[in-house]
């Protein structure tokens, strides 16, 4: 098997060189004569099958194979590779740019993305970019990434509808979604897909870590229409947490409640070792989440519904003894 495979690779490499070299379109028959490896095809049919498969492989690899004729009198189509579209465009990176690219390539902890990044680096180097070594001590890492990132990015790029199984966070229920994907966003340490959910007929934000099947593109390319002036990050932000609009007054013991002090709009010293902080929040449940971990060091003073939310949960907890 390795011998067969390496002979096929050799044939493909020769085919690429031949089709990049030629200015005119080459017919299949001409290619059969020129490229070593087709000569051992036992029949015309066997050659045709091998050549079809090779063309498909080249296209799968992103090699821009063109079909055409050299003159109006040719009735058989020929092939060549568009040189301009084949090669990575010239790229000059300043040293600081090359350094961050090198850093980015090493951030992945997942093997597939890490290997893709390494292949990309080799290509950049092959194009003359010198990727500088990592600055000492600087080593950001990305979490093992969701396997759905790449298929979804492909669907976004191609403007294709995509389907996947999705598990909601609230009730842990899985369901099949059909989505017109608009874009992917990195938001506070996680990847999200923003798009139009066809079944729900509305804009939806999906967390990639909850996509439980490999996303499958369906239908033709170029059918997805993104809204004009779409700000992906803003959409996720609006879903992630409705911006805090309410303000609560919270009494915080001196030298305690640092997390609340950081989130506060104002901190005023009052008496007897307490400070009063003004704390933005979304709804009473959200305020309770913020304040409860501080126990008796943080006491909500107002508004009343926020006080009630905290007291209710404290009562529930104290009653479990």
């Amino acid at each position, binding site marked *: 098997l390795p011998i067969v495979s390496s002979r096929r690779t050799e044939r493909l490499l020769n085919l690429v060189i031949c089709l990049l070299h030629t200015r005119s379109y080459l017919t299949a028959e001409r290619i059969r004569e020129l490229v070593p490896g087709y000569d051992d095809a036992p029949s015309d049919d066997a050659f045709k099958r091998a050549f079809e498969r090779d063309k498909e*492989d080249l296209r799968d690899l992103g090699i821009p194979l063109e079909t055409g004729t050299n003159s109006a009198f040719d009735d058989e189509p020929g092939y060549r590779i568009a040189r301009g579209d084949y090669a990575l465009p010239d790229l000059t990176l300043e040293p600081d740019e090359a350094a961050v690219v090198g850093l980015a*390539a090493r951030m992945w902890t997942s093997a597939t993305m890490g290997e893709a990044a390494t292949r990309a680096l080799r290509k950049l180097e092959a194009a003359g970019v010198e990727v500088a070594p990592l600055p000492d001590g600087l080593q950001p890492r990305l979490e093992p990434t969701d396997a759905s990132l790449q298929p979804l990015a492909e669907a976004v790029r191609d403007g294709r509808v995509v389907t996947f199984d999705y598990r909601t966070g609230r009730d842990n229920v899985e369901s099949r979604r059909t989505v017109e994907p608009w874009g992917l966003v990195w938001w506070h340490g996680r990847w999200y897909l923003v798009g139009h959910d066809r079944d729900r007929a509305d804009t939806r934000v999906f967390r990639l870590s909850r996509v439980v099947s490999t996303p499958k593109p369906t239908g033709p390319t170029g059918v997805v229409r993104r809204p004009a002036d779409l700000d*992906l990050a803003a959409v996720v932000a609006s879903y992630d947490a409705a911006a805090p609009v309410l303000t609560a007054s919270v009494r915080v013991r001196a030298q305690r409640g640092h997390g609340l002090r950081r989130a506060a709009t104002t901190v005023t010293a009052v008496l007897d070792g307490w400070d009063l902080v003004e704390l933005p929040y979304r709804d009473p449940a959200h305020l309770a989440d913020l304040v409860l971990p501080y126990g008796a060091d943080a006491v909500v003073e107002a508004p009343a519904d926020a006080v009630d939310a905290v007291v209710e949960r404290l009562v529930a907890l104290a009653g479990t003894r």
Partner: protein
Amino acid sequence: MSGATDHLPRLLALVPWLLAHPDTPVADVAKQFGVDERQIRRDLDLIWMCGLPGHGPGDLIDVFYEGDRVSLSNADTISKPLRLTLDEALALVAALRTLLGLPGLVETSAVDRALAKLEAAAGGMSDDVVSADRAAAEPGVATAVRTALESQRRLRMRYWVPARDEADERDVDPIRTFTAQGAAYLVGWCRRVEDVRTFRLDRVLEIAVLDEPAEVPAEARRRAVDAGVFTPAPEDRLVTIDVDPQARWVADYYPTEDVTEQAGGGLRVRLRARDDDWVVRLGLGLAGSAVIVDPPELAAAVCAAAAQALAEYRPNG
């Protein structure tokens, strides 16, 4: 993908790479391409059989060795690398975009410029496809950390320890930074405890780069390589928590020992905790949607803390 479609891209990258890096030891080439030396030699043997139609002596690609070093010539048609595939472009662009969310750790303008160039070169991988929020956090802390790392100087900072809800001042000699779950961390030699410690940058309340040089014991520098976010150790206390359906996120959010489904959609979560105060705060924060079941003394501590907090609301009891 078949073997050939895996193999061909490497050859099409190897040829221009070697043209740009003549006279490279075969072992280094192998390392760069993530395969073993024998494979690279097989690749080169194959490349050497290929060339322009006609395949006469002047048409084939030349591969020549000098000792263990290799160079290559007569490969004009494939002297440029194939453009980036989607997964390659995505791997670079997506990682660069996440760097923008960590201000101060890197020069943001360099990231922006690199992104613009890569997106132009990669076609179709614009910020329409992948985007990222720019961190809202003040970059002052990260900038100070980066400055200290670059100039090998000591940091003085006021740091908030949420588990105990205390802020303290300490001098730290920086060793390295890393990111996890969207937050940036500093690993450093804490001079007060004389040990390696990990600090979350968004919990640094104040920071200054001192004039003193950083002095990190060599042994600490070695250990700092493994230092990361909290990883549970066997000697940490095992805590059992029953969470209601609305608090299932607990199992996603914290490193757990095991998780069992409960009737009614809840979970029984077991996790390890180093700090009892932390467990009490967790229990308080989950009031109404989760109950600590074990160990009993921590369950009691949470109830006591809740009663104490309640007393603040009902002074007359």
